[in-house]
Each structure stands twice: as C-alpha cells, then as structure tokens.
C-alpha cells in the first residue's frame, strides 16, 4: 500500500515536472527574446557610468572577483594569506573612492552609478560599517553598566521592529532633517548609512548569541594569566564569539545583498532599479520574464559566491583543523 502511494507521488511529480519543463522549453525556443538582456549588458554591470570611464567600475569588480577566487583557492604563500583580510576590508571604501574620482581621475557623481557595481558597493560599504557598530551594540547590551545596556537594547529592539523599507525611506527623508542646514550628503551615501544602521541591530543579536556561547571560564582563565579585561575581550572572548556567530553573520550578509534591491523602490538604479527603468522602455515592453530570470541568476550567483566564501572561512577558522 505504502509503496503504491510512493509510486503515485513520484508519477505525479514527474508529470508536473514534465509539464513545467515542456512549457519552459516551448517559451525558450519560441517566445523568449533575450535582446533586453544582451543589448544592455553594460547598463546591468555599471549603470549609466560615462562610457569612457567604464573601465573604473569594471576594474573594481574584476579586482573583487580576483580576490574571491584567490580566497577560495587558498594561497600557499604566507604573506598573501596574511594580507587577504586587509584586502577585503579596504575593498568597499577603495571602490567608493575610486569611482567618485580618486587618484586625480575624472569625478563622477553618484547619480550615474548603477547596476551590479552599485549593488556590490552598497552591500560591501554598509556591511563594513555595520559589523563594528553591531559588535559594539552587542557588547553594550551585555555590559553590566545599566545605562549602556538599556540604550543598546532600546536601539536594537526598535530597529528590529521596523521594516527595512521604512528605515530606508526615512533615511532618505529624515537624515537631511537631522543634519545642520549647510551639510548635505548624497543619496547613495544616505542609503548606505541607513542600511548600516539597520543591519547593525541584526548583527548585534547574532554577535550576542556568539558571546553567550563562550563559557565564563574563558574570561576567568584570561584573568588568571594576567590579561586586562580589555585584552581578554579582544584576544580571547571576541575572536571565539565571532567564530561561533559566523554562520548567522553569513545569513545577514546574504540578506544584506538581497535587500539592496529595495533601493529600487526609492529610485536608486542598482541591479533591480536599472531593470525597472529598462522595462519602462517601449522597445522592451512586456519582457518581464526574461529580465527577471536574468536578475534571479545574477543574484543567485552572487549570494552563492558569498555563502561559499563564508563556508570557506568557517573551515579555515575551525580550531580542530588549525590544531593539526
């Protein structure tokens, strides 16, 4: 009886899969027109960056891909291995500076930044801001000083209660209101700050989970060895806590990359935003499926690459492995 049910389910699933596969094939061969993707590849990559300056975002992305591959291969040379973390940290600020017109290059306003470049810059930049802020908030929430504990907890809980789109919208709207009249920061930077403020609250909770997993004996052992509280935190507790928190931090990072797509609603032309403006073009009207499949593939690849990198890092940091 049970075996027949099993076979029935298999047959039903096969029929469904066959039907889906057949209609997909039919559409691919007869209905699909990929010109909306193929003719606009530069737009997807760098947005409306001036054509003669496109090499700058492309160079930055090439460097990013190289760095990813290098990390995944795992260099044998000691010096390269030691410098890799530093390269990762400077990547986003370097990109912002390089695109804005560092090194005496032609200044390009953030208005013409877009596509995958902007998506990656937003992810990297806000991640680099949010991680230290999140760690500070987590430490604050576990502090035995009530004022510090309450203010960190209040910040974390408030941020986690609001939807991201509201934070981003009000970041665009309110940040100028809270700044002194003469001072203005541009839209991309505002988005980056709002993202970082939001992500820090979630990162703080992940780091707090990691901190809770470290037994108090570790701190006591450090104290016995004569380490000051700060040294024990910096050298003993935090490194272990971050390693424990790494899987959930990875999820946050992937979430951050996916959530940059929300900026499309607020009019930034990152990967999804540029597609929305392309779909509004009469030449490509109605080509939704092609564009969405293409975008899904790009996001899927970027997210998977990030997850792979984090998995690699986990293996690298595994104490059982480094001890042998």
């Amino acid at each position, binding site marked *: 009886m049970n075996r027949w049910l099993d076979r029935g389910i298999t047959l039903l699933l096969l029929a469904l899969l066959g039907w889906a596969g057949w209609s997909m094939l039919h559409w691919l061969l007869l209905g699909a027109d990929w010109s909306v993707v193929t003719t606009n590849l530069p737009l997807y990559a760098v947005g409306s960056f001036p054509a003669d300056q496109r090499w700058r975002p492309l160079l930055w992305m090439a460097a990013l891909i190289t760095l990813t591959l290098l990390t995944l291969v795992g260099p044998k040379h000691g010096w390269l291995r030691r410098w890799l973390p530093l390269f990762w940290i400077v990547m986003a600020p370097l990109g912002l500076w390089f695109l804005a017109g560092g090194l005496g290059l032609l200044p390009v306003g953030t208005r013409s930044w877009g596509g995958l470049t902007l998506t990656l810059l937003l992810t990297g930049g806000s991640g680099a801001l949010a991680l230290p802020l999140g760690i500070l908030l987590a430490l604050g929430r576990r502090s035995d000083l009530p004022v510090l504990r309450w203010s960190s907890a209040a910040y974390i809980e408030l941020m986690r209660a609001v939807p*991201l789109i509201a934070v981003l919208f009000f970041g665009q709207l309110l940040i100028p209101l*809270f700044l002194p009249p003469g001072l203005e920061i541009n839209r991309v930077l505002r988005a980056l700050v709002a993202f970082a403020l939001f992500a820090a609250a979630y990162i703080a909770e992940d780091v707090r989970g990691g901190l809770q997993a470290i037994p108090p004996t570790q701190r006591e052992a450090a104290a016995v060895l004569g380490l000051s509280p700060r040294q024990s935190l910096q050298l003993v507790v935090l490194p272990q806590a971050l390693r424990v928190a790494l899987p959930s931090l990875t999820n946050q990072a992937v979430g951050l990359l996916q959530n940059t797509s929300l900026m499309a609603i607020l009019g930034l032309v990152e990967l999804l935003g540029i597609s929305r403006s392309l779909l509004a073009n009469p030449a490509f009207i109605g080509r939704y499926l092609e564009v969405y499949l293409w975008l899904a593939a790009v996001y899927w690849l970027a997210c998977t690459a990030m997850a792979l990198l984090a998995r690699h890092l986990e293996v690298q940091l595994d104490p059982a492995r480094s001890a042998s």
Partner: protein
Amino acid sequence: MRQRRLLVQVGVAAVLIGLLALLVNNLAVNLIRTGLGLGFGWLGRPAGFALAETALPYAPSDSYLWALTIGWLNSLKVIAAGLVLATVLGVAAGAARSSNNRLLRSLAGGYVALIRQVPLLLQLLFWYFVAFLGLPSVPIGGLIRLSNQGIQLLGLNLSVEFCAVLVGLTVFTGASIAEIVRGGINAVPRGQWEAFRSLGLGEGLGLRRIVLPQALPAILPALTSQYLNLAKNSTLAIAVGYADLYAVSDTTITQTGRAIEGFLLLLLSFLLLNLLISGGMAAFNRAVLGRLNRSR
C-alpha cells in the same frame, strides 16, 4: 572601582543626550526653516486619495486617520493569510525533505535552495507582472475563476495585487520555515522513528503524532522570528501597488510632508503588530511546553 563605573555611565549618558540634543536642535532648525512644525492635527483632514482595496467603507473625503486604518487592515489581511499559508507550505516542504521518496526530497531541497538566494522583491515582481498579470481568463469548475483582473474563489473576490503579495510572501517565508522544520525534525532522536515504525504506525501518522510534536519546542522560537519577518516584509507590497499600511503612509507623507509624525505612527503600528504576533506565539509556546511536560 564603583566610582569609575558611575563615571563611565554618566559619561555615556552625557554623550548620548548630547548627541540627541544636537540632532533635535538640527531638526528644530530645519522644521522652522521649512515652516512645518510638529503636530497630529492633520490626521483629521480629508485624505483626498482613493484606495483600490478597502475592507471597510472608505471614500477620498474621509480623514487621513481612516485611510491609515484601512491600510492597517489591508496589512493585517495579507499578513494573517500569509502566516497560515506559509506555515502549511513550510511544514510540508520541511517534512518532504526527510521523506523516503527521493524525487520529493530533492524537489523540496531545490525549492529551498533557489528561493532563499533570490531577493523577495524580485520574486514579488515576478508573481505580479509575470504570473498573475499574465493569467488567461479561465473558469475552473464554476466556483473558481482566474483572470488577470482578479481571482474569484467560492464567492471570495481577491485582487491580483493581494494574490501576488500573498503568494510571494508565502513562497519566500515557506522556504525559511521549511529549513526550521527540517532542523527541528532532525533534532528528534532517530530512535523515535524506529520506535513508531516497529509499532506498525505509517510514516505520515508517525510524523504527525510522534515526531512533529516533539520537534515543536525546537521549532517555535525560530518560527516566531520568521512570522515577524513576514509581517515586516509585507511592506514590500508597495512595489506591486497593494494599499497596505506602508503604502498608505508613504502617500500620506508625500502629500502632507509630515515625515516625522508619519514615521512615529508607522513605528507604533509595527510595534503593535509585533506584540500581537510574538504575544500569540508565546502563549502557544507555553501551551505546547505545558502539554509536553504533562505527557512525560
């Protein structure tokens, strides 16, 4: 030592208050400059915009407050339906991942792997523009009628926007719930499976009566945070034009320029929503734990 602790706290408080004062001062300067001021009197003024979907009677001449309430009800509608459907889908997919049928198992695995690596907003746009607006007009058996104008289900009339948001949220959250359910099921000792099998119970019955009840304590806390995520994610409905709380707030703020008051109201509404969800789940959690303890 105690003095130092006090000193540090006073220092932190002073910096925080100073920062807050600076921000508020800047805000006041900017508000005076734009001539807006703060206040909630505008809530009683007529909203002047139409809403496509209203649970209670609403006309553009009604107040902003009433428009926001309608938006709140629309949010509640899609969130409540989404919670139920996502739970069903998630539990089914999570259970399918530990099924004996290899095809079913890998299909469920593929679903989770694909959905979790693609942004929700992109998925929502797909459901709206491709799946629902591309629907041909087909009646199915007289009681159900599909078309790109809306879906009629046993006399229930659902708009395309509502359906797109609901399906998008369900499919996205279902994938996360599936992972949680799988983790919970894996946490139940294998001996329990062997025990019910040796008692002659079928797989489905054993899963429902033996394994899932024991997996619940591990599942519920993570499930609560997924429910809260679903509620927060429902604000993406604005991208497909569904008039939820956030969309109505957005229009209201654009019309009145009352960004700060609007933000405060939105914050309050979401705190209330979160309280509803986490309070309900906490009560459920207590009930489950109580039953489990009694049965031991």
